[in-house]
């Protein structure tokens, strides 16, 4: 019984820590697949957080608090907060300023960003969302935020 429990506990951590370096080639069903791969994965979200900084998303969204662009950590979503909606916002752009990143970033990078953006308003599993930031940050880390609708 005890061993079964230990086995069960180790199994729950698998999905969180899995790092898939070689991703499947882009295909028709990729929209769903990409999301399944990154949704509860700590590595994907941490990469998403890095890319959020690298690609200067903060230039408009300011660490999620909003500035020139809308806030990403509140409960308002102009274009929906389903992973597919956020993916479309990133890859195709939206009116009034959101540029299209298609051709500039890879599909898997976009999915990592989607997973991270969802974690900003508490939509990711807390055990997989990023913890403290590397730099000074006044708010609560992503894994401490409650889900906002």
């Amino acid at each position: 019984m005890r061993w079964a429990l230990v086995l069960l506990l180790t199994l729950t951590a698998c999905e969180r820590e899995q790092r898939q370096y070689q991703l499947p080639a882009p295909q028709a069903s990729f929209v769903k697949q990409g999301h399944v791969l990154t949704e509860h994965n700590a590595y994907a979200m941490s990469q998403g957080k890095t890319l959020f900084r690298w690609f200067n998303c903060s230039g408009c969204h300011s660490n999620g608090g909003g500035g020139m662009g809308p806030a990403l950590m509140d409960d308002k979503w102009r274009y929906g907060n389903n992973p597919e909606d956020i993916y479309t916002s990133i890859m195709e752009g939206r009116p009034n300023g959101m540029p299209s990143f298609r051709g500039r970033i890879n599909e898997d990078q976009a999915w990592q960003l989607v997973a991270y953006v969802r974690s900003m308003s508490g939509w990711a599993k807390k055990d997989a969302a990023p913890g403290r930031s590397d730099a000074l940050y006044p708010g609560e880390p992503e894994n401490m935020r409650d889900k906002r609708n």
Partner: protein
Amino acid sequence: MQSILQSAGPQAAHIESLWWLTLAMCTAVFLAILVALGLALMRKRRGTAATPPDISFITKKERAAELAVVAGVGVSLLGLIVLTLASFVTDRALASLGAPDLQIDVTGHQWWWDARYDDQDKSKIFTVANEIHIPVGKPVLLRLRADDVIHSFWVPNLSGKKDMIPGRDATLTLQADKPGVYRGQCAEFCGAQHAKMALLFIADEKYEEWAAAQRKPAPQPANEQQKRGRDLFVDGRCAMCHAIQGTTANARHAPDLTHLMSRQMLAAGAVPNSIGHLAGWILDPSSIKPGSNMPPNPMEPDDLHALLAYLGTLK
């Protein structure tokens, strides 16, 4: 090639002599202990189970044993003092190389090295990656930083090790007396590709010529194919992280590629810099360095050839 026993500069020479002294003393101590052990083993048993115990030491002093203990403690103490002094003198020597001629800011990233050559004249500052040239016989000051996690800078033939900690500046002075190529390697585990985070330190007799060439912006594309390659680079994925001076690509999250073709290795020492390896690296980096932050870039053959043709001009 990567050895502290083939020192190529004063810093490494100090460390090498300290290493030899420590080795000699430790060997001597080890041999002395083995001899003492041998003597103890050879010493005959002085009686059988029937002999009454020897308790003469209560009344009679054991001069020989006393002398051996005192001498042993004295020699050990002396040895330790010599090693401490030698280490102190070496440290002092390492810190007094003289005023540096050149300052380079070296930043460790997962998993590559960024080197920015500082200059009083701001227009002379330039950036390279993974291959650092220095003049021969002149002290160089390195300012070491880390961008993401803790790395450690170590070129064994030229200097000691120095940790690079995010948010802190560490400095290291070194000098190469013999021209040559010295390999360095990250010496602090820093993630999946720690083993493939190498750099080449090149003590270059023609340093000034090299630096002058590195300061130049990238050449303009000479034909239609190269022009198409440049447009792919600047308008596509590459420019999201890489920089090429003289174009609008100016991101700083990946190696500066202005003079990519002047380097010997690709991907921080992972593979030699040839067109074939470069094509493989662009298409599928995870087959060379799984987990690398360079994403896969599937593209049409024509586009790939155009991009390679353009990158080939970055000498």
